[in-house]
């Protein structure tokens, strides 16, 4: 249902030691933002790219698609950073005058942006390596070993399970609404999405009611243990 999740369980590195994968990715993240070195970051990106596509065998086409959304954000932010405003033309490499002010690209912000782009690419590729090769079920064990607060681990376990129950329901409700013209026009869309949220919201309580019965019958003693 979620493509990244699917790959995490089916890629070629799925059975590789989860702690090793985790430390590898997190280590790379630290190096990437810690050193903030163009060459190092380029190398990290290339390594992660190869590990994820060639070794873990994530199809390149889908892999690249995952970059799409973050890169849009990156583009907008970079433009924001690169373009500055000043009354003094001297600070810019090139500029245009609008009214009293000059808008242009400053040398420092340009070089900063280049650093950002490389840093982002190396970090994203490291995160993708982790999320595409290591399933949440494996990560949960890693979190436990790393002594995350137990209550966090338990909530992660439960939320992860319930995400898919709600996802499936929301999809079915959405389809049924779509078939009834629920998303034709703005007004219908708002009404439909509100109804959908309401339906899911009520489901929380129905499920809660049934689940605590099931918990009782399984002798729940207040703790969701993980092996």
């Amino acid at each position, binding site marked *: 249902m979620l493509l990244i999740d699917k790959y995490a369980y089916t890629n070629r590195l799925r059975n590789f030691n989860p702690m090793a994968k985790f430390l590898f990715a997190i280590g790379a993240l630290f190096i990437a933002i810690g050193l903030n070195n163009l060459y190092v970051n380029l190398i990290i990106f290339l390594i992660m790219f190869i590990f994820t596509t060639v070794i873990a065998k994530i199809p390149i086409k889908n892999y690249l698609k995952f970059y799409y959304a973050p890169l849009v954000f990156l583009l907008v932010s970079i433009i924001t950073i690169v373009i500055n405003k000043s009354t003094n033309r001297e600070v810019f490499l090139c500029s245009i005058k609008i009214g009293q002010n000059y808008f242009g690209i400053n040398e420092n912000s340009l070089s900063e942006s280049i650093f950002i782009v490389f840093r*982002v690419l190396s970090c994203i590729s490291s995160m993708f390596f982790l999320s595409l090769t290591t399933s949440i079920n494996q990560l949960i064990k890693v979190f436990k070993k790393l002594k995350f607060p137990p209550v*966090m681990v338990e909530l992660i376990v439960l939320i992860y399970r319930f995400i898919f129950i709600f996802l499936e329901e929301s999809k079915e409700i959405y389809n049924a609404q779509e078939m009834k013209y629920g998303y034709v026009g703005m007004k219908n869309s708002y009404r439909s999405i509100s109804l959908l949220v309401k339906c899911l919201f009520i489901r929380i309580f129905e499920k809660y009611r049934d689940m605590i019965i099931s918990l009782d019958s399984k002798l729940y003693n207040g703790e969701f243990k993980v092996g």
Partner: protein
Amino acid sequence: MKNKKYLLSFMFLLLVLAPSISNAMHIMEGFLPVKWAIFWTIVTLPFLIVGINRVNKVFKEDTNRKVLLGLAGGFVFVLSALKIPSVTGSCSHPTGVGLGAILFGPTTMTVVGIIVLLFQALLLAHGGLTTLGANTFSMAVVGPLVSYGLFKFLKKRNVKTSVSVFIASALGDLATYVITSIQLSLAFPDKVSGFLGSMGKFLSIFAVTQIPLAIVEGILTSIIYNLLLEY
């Protein structure tokens, strides 16, 4: 029905803690320089610790609440994965995060929030691990606090509930957006005009999308509130 009480308190939450993890802008993985990544993690930490203690206390009283909070977390995540057409024409995510739990107090939101943000990073590639601290601070600390405070405040003043709901959720959303802009401006002060110049740029760029979104969010939350009242 015994659930009625839960339902009401939860509803309250829905309204109040609206600034959503879902529709706010996530700072992407690797975007923040190392010192700011660390800084925001440290700033968020106390809230997280208070939240965890709080959650632990609630769970001690009633262990079944773990499941309820888990369900709320799953729900919040799914809302963030839904798409609705927004005023600006692009697709955005609907409201509702807050949902976390007034039952558990607003700091609980930080605990559920950080987990949902973690899942968003790992499963949806929204946000990131190095920026988890900064995103948690804007979306799961400040946003909920603002909505929560506003809602309480307006309620005391006897403002009509649906209006309070609208204001609380819309402004909570805006607060998140302002904080994100501040975070970005601190990290990337304008090389020419400094922090303030940068702040102006980020605020105006994101205002185009975020202000209409905040309004949509407010409206949706009120509609949902009314629908739930019917039920």
